[in-house]
């Protein structure tokens, strides 16, 4: 390894995970032991797992919040919680689930899986990846510090002004929400940027864009979507913070515009709905066919439908504002788009059905979750179609019908897919299979609990129960429905608990998985389980979409080369390939582990802590320290071939 090496003809090596080459790569890529090593790690598998664990912790916390206020709502006129406690809990529940669980869990899966499924060794920007994770954790801690200090947000997760403005909400509650959202927004944006570069630039040789797994399509699509959408909400929260703390006039009456908040919020908010479901349904599109013993039906249609959903998703934000007194033309246009956006979802749904119908499904727990997912996917889809129609929405909006819809979409489309994906990829990540028997109980309790808990919400909504009420009177026909909902939610939570138990037991006593327990088709299953720090001992070359099945499917005249490839072992190296065809373009030097990502994230969070208490010296000091860290981070290194000697 010489620093002055600017180009070379890469040699070939044979795939052997027990060779001296593998030992050399392990030495190069391994995270150093100890706490410092752990904190400095930039290994995408390490970070992806942390993302997943952290997001599940947020899921549990958000779930407990819901279980508490479901007791308050189990009977009419209960006083278990005060109105203010209820309002803070439901806001925290929504914010935690939508912002600190639903997207980070998918980011976790993508950070872990993406470099593996596209046959490379890490994300394009490994240190940025670590920074993104730390900032996500710190933004969540920031929000929950507010909660612990008695200043939890209380204006709902969409935080409408003027209720969220200083005149009606004088405490720091909303400021904690606004600033933690800006931190999280920075993390999300940078994470998306990293995915875009990784997927467009680092796929294995021969993995042309039409050979990417659907997960890559999903992640690429929503990452590009995030680049366009995230600034809207980050800006909305920044302007709110300015209004609240510095007296600007964006939202505040008499001169401000309350609806500007709603526009900025939903111009992000609706694309966001697709952002937190498209990668999840992409996981299904990749895993389900394996369990049906056939390639996905309609790969191209599903890939393009994913992109189309995201594009249309930018044109429907006004359907959250149908009751705000908009002109008829706008109502008609946005209503039509909101109904038409069902079409790309229908493409995916029929592709899955056809895959099951023409395949030979293997009824394991992962398949159960995917099948359950399809049912709730459809229920969540049709209730969305119902709210897309303006006049009907005038009745449905802000009732429990919408609460039911959002839970079918977010739990159904996100959590059920994530559960199935967890059962499917757990063996790859840990080397152990999850227990099937416990898994079956896990699925049925969650599926039944979910439907028992959330389906009646549709009916509560049709009977006129408004959302976000801390209690409801007797005699509205809502008593039984709410009791059933509460019971269902506890069953559902218990089902999820079994999942956690299953993880603990299977980690200890689980069956060894081997590299490819499901006889799956894609690249990640060629590595040992769990994958070594360098992922691939030699980089594979692809000729088809299903490299591990191609000899059996016997369709293409050419075959992928998985047995030998580029070892790229002159340091931490990876391969850059061309965007569309996956032609090798350059050898990339990957950075070593670094503490800079953590330190920079801490400096930024400290700066935001200064912003909330208005300690300006702290703001400026942490800004300057952050800039220093940034300079150290970016200083060109000969070792990375970023500069001449």
């Amino acid at each position, binding site marked *: 390894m010489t620093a002055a*090496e*600017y*180009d*070379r*003809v*890469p040699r*070939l090596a044979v795939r052997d995970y027990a060779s001296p080459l593998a030992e050399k790569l392990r030495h190069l890529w391994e995270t150093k032991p100890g706490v410092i090593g752990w904190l400095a790690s930039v290994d995408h598998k390490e970070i992806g797992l942390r993302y997943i664990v952290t997001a599940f912790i947020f899921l549990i916390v958000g779930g407990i919040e819901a279980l508490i206020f479901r007791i308050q709502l189990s009977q009419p006129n209960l006083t278990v919680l005060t109105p203010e406690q209820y309002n803070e809990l439901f806001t925290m529940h929504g914010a935690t689930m939508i912002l600190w669980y639903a997207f980070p869990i998918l980011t976790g899966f993508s950070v872990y899986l993406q470099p593996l499924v596209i046959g490379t060794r890490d994300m*394009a*920007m490994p240190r940025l990846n670590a920074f993104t994770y730390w900032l996500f954790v710190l933004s969540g801690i920031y929000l929950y510090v507010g909660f612990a200090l008695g200043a939890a947000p209380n204006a709902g997760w969409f935080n409408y002004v003027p209720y969220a403005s200083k005149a009606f909400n004088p405490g720091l509650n909303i400021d904690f929400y606004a600033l933690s959202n800006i931190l999280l927004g920075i993390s999300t944006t940078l994470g*998306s*940027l*990293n995915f875009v*570069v990784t997927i*467009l*630039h680092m796929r294995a*040789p*021969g993995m042309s864009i039409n050979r990417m797994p659907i997960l890559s399509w999903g992640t690429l699509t929503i990452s*590009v979507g*995030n*680049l*366009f959408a*995230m*600034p*809207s909400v*980050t*800006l909305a929260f920044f*302007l709110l913070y*300015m209004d609240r703390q510095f*007296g*600007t*006039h*964006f939202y505040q009456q008499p*001169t401000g*515009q309350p609806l*500007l908040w709603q*526009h*900025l919020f939903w*111009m992000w908010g609706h694309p966001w709905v697709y952002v937190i479901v498209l990668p999840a349904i992409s996981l299904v599109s990749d895993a389900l066919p394996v369990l049906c013993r056939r390639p996905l039906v309609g790969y191209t249609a599903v890939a393009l439908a994913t992109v189309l959903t995201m594009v249309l998703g930018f044109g429907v934000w006004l359907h959250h504002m149908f009751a705000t007194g908009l002109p008829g033309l706008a109502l008609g246009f946005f209503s039509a788009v909101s109904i038409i956006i069902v079409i790309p979802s229908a493409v995916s749904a029929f592709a899955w059905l056809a895959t099951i119908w023409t395949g030979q499904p293997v009824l394991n727990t992962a398949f159960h979750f995917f099948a359950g997912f399809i049912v709730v996917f459809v229920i969540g889809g049709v209730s969305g179609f119902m709210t897309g129609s303006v006049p009907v929405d005038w009745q449905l909006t802000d009732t429990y019908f919408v609460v039911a819809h959002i839970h079918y979409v977010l739990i159904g489309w996100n959590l059920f897919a994530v559960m199935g994906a967890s059962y499917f990829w757990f063996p790859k990540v840990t080397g152990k299979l999850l227990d099937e028997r416990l898994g079956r109980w896990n699925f049925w309790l969650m599926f039944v609990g979910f439907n028992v808990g959330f389906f009646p919400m549709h009916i509560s909504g049709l009977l006129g129960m408004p959302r976000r009420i801390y209690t409801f009177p007797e005699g509205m026909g809502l008593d039984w429905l709410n009791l059933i909902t509460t019971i269902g939610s506890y069953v559902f939570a218990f089902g999820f608990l079994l999942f956690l138990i299953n993880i603990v037991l299977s980690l200890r006593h689980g069956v060894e998985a081997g590299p490819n327990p499901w006889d799956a088709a894609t690249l990640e299953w060629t590595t040992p389980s769990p994958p070594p720090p360098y992922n691939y001992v030699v980089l594979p*070359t692809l000729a088809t979409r299903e490299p591990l099945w191609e000899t059996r499917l016997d369709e*293409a005249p*050419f075959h992928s080369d998985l047995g030998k490839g*580029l070892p790229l072992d002159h340091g931490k190296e990876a391969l*850059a390939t061309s965007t569309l*065809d*996956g*032609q*090798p*373009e*350059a*050898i*990339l*030097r990957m950075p070593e582990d670094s503490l800079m990502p953590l330190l920079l994230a801490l400096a930024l969070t400290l700066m935001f802590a200064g912003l909330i208490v208005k300690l300006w010296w702290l703001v400026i000091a942490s800004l300057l320290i952050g800039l220093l860290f940034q*300079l150290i981070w970016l*200083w*060109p290194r000969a070792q*990375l*071939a*970023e*500069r*001449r000697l």
Partner: protein
Amino acid sequence: MTIVAVPRTELPIGSVTPRTVGWWGIIAGIVTEASLFAYLLFGYFYFAIQPHGEMWPAEMPTFKLAGPNTVILLISSVAVWYGERGGRQGSRLKQAAGLGTGFLLGVIFVTIQVLEWKAKSFSYNSGPYGSLFFVITGFHMGHVVLGLLMLFPLTIWSMLGYFGPGRDAPISIGAIYWHFVDAVWLTVFFSLYITPYLGLRHG
């Protein structure tokens, strides 16, 4: 059907091709930053089309400082381009001089912009127009400062001879960002200074 074979020819190593990881990164970053300004200007025009009466200042925007300042920023972009091109030709002097000039012109832009702010009859909290004006130009200033924070070390690094032909990705990345900041200013300038004369009247 694309068939890719394992390369038998030389592959460059590191940040060297015209499209490195960093280049992709900055393009993605520019997409998101451009969106940020699009939303900011959406906010501006959202207010501007409402009946605004007292919300808007009576006087029309003046070009006295903003006009020359726009020219200065444009020239700084040219300087950075000159430096980048000079570096490609192997001239460390041109490289450092171009980047350094771009940096200095950027500093002058910031200074004049502060004077422009001081000359305004309204403030950030006097009404919606003031809030919009200062937050939009403030965001732009933030980006100019960020660009300067890139140009300064790049100038130093060029002087140290870090970069040369085929090893100048950080310079290209910094230059793209600087041109972007310039383009954003033109958009902001058009929206805040020109559109009032095109019918989106004040007062």
